[in-house]
């Protein structure tokens, strides 16, 4: 369904030009969940945003390669086609729900905006909004939908973001660090919710994170990114149990374990990784 071929993305011009993504190859099948793991600056978020050409250009430059979604190259699409793609076929959930929701519009209006854009089959928008909020586990959705984002807790805000993303029944959900900004207990709830939704709606998902600890049970395959390259790829089980690359090993080693008898937390020494 999704195929990245030799994708290279640069930022900036002249002497300040940097290669954020250095010619990567990636593929994702329908209904599959791929976890893209790496630390900050590895290029994973850039890759995620590139799928619907969401990066601001300038400074981003799509130097090389193709992004094939259902056979079509996203990089060659017209603005109108891109707008149909965004939200309609590929939807996003971002890291900070408190700033990602517009503070002056009600929840209902923001979800309705997405529905108006992509779902011509819906006649009763309010009912559909209630249905979406219900899907993500929001209690008393008919009343809550008239609230403003600041009236909701962080966990609920993220649920709303997910509801908004799902409102148009996308084929692919890109979740960029969806739980990083939330408390640990809420993290688990959100992940459970996402796992359930994925199964129910048979949706493909690209889960972008720096935390190996959250991908177990939700990701089918894993790709590890380091400084713009994909250094390891495989099924979750393979990678977690038998990491090949030094970086992958180091990343996995960073996950603190309960019952560990260690005085210091593990860190990654970049100088040895090359």
């Amino acid at each position, binding site marked *: 369904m999704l195929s990245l071929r030799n994708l290279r993305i640069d930022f900036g011009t002249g002497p300040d030009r940097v290669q954020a993504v250095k010619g990567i190859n990636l593929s994702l099948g329908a209904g599959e969940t791929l976890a893209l793991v790496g630390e900050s600056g590895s290029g994973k978020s850039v890759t995620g945003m590139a799928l619907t050409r969401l990066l601001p250009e300038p400074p981003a430059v799509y130097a090389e390669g193709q992004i094939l979604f259902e056979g079509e190259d996203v990089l060659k699409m017209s603005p109108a086609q891109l707008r149909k793609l965004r939200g309609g076929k590929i939807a996003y959930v971002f890291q900070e729900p408190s700033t990602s929701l517009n503070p002056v519009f009600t929840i209902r209006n923001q979800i309705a905006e997405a529905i108006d854009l992509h779902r011509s089959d819906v006649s009763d928008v309010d009912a559909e909004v209630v249905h979406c909020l219900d899907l993500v586990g929001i209690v008393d959705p008919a009343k809550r939908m008239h609230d*403003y984002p600041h009236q909701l807790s962080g966990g609920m805000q993220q649920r709303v973001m997910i509801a908004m993303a799902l409102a148009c029944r996308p084929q692919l959900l890109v979740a960029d660090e969806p739980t990083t900004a939330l408390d640990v207990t809420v993290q688990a709830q959100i992940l459970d919710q996402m796992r359930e939704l994925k199964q129910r709606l048979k949706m493909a998902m690209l889960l972008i994170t720096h935390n190996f600890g959250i991908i177990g049970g939700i990701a089918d395959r894993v790709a590890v990114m380091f400084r713009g390259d994909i250094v390891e790829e495989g099924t979750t089980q393979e990678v977690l149990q038998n990491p090949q690359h030094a970086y992958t090993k180091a990343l996995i080693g960073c996950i603190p374990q309960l019952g560990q008898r260690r005085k210091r937390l593990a860190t990654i020494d970049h100088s040895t990784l090359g």
Partner: protein
Amino acid sequence: MFAYLLRRLFFFIPIVFGVMLLTFVLFFVVQSPDATARRVLGQKATPKSVENWLHNRGYDKPLLINHTPGKPWHDSLFIHQMGRLATFDLGTSDVSGRPLREVFAQGVLPSLLLTLPAFLLSIALGVGLALYLVFIRNAVVDLAASLFCVALMSVPVMVYVIFGQFVVAQVLNYFPAFGFELSGWSTPKFLLLPVVLMVVSGLGADVRLFRALFLEEMGQDYIRTARAKGVSTVQVLMRHVLKNGLINLITLVVASLPFLIMGSLLLENFFGIPGLGNVLFTAIQAPDFAVVQASVFLGSLLYLGGLLLTDVCYAWADPRIRLQ
């Protein structure tokens, strides 16, 4: 929301008092009433006329506390002036003796006839141009527009006026370059040039300001979310950026409202419009200290009123404050 507004109101009262104090120090301490009398009377200043002038206005009282036997201790200049201002008694003109309340009331309408249309036009034009610049986001156009705005801002108002009057009166001869008439359809004829000049002289700063505001909005996370949902750039601007930017816009716009009443000092003088600006201008030349003092007090009240109004609008417009 009401608690918030009440707190703001309480904050203003000591400031009003501070302004009254400042006015007193400036007009009665830095320049003694004696010196004021001499300057106002000019050539006609004899010791006797000065004495009369001071006595008629009650300026011959001691400054802070009255020590003369037979008189109450609070019969001083300071207490009297504070009392006067506290009861909104604006006093009378040093030069003409007319009650200032009358003088000011007369000047409000002509001033508003100039400032209100100019204000509305400036907002419409400024916001429109700024939105356009943000929409096309072309580096070359941005640079050119930026330079143009800075250039517009770098010209003093007088030059705009002198030039405008010259071009319109002598070269084009379409509209009168001077004068004012308060009679139905001919009034716009006299107002056209000053309004246009007022808009043009402020346009550079306005567009820059609004553009910076809208650009800041565009950088917000929720705009990214909107674009990720497939909202077009036009819709993003008109719906999201404008509504969010409006809250900040209100702060700037509403704060200017009281100044509309004060009119424009320079423009009214240049065009002979009998508004409050002209009243002040004449007072500066005379010199009429009573008018200036009253203007200072009134101007401050208007400014603080504007701030309070801004707070009200802000509290109402931003759901985060409204729903506490």
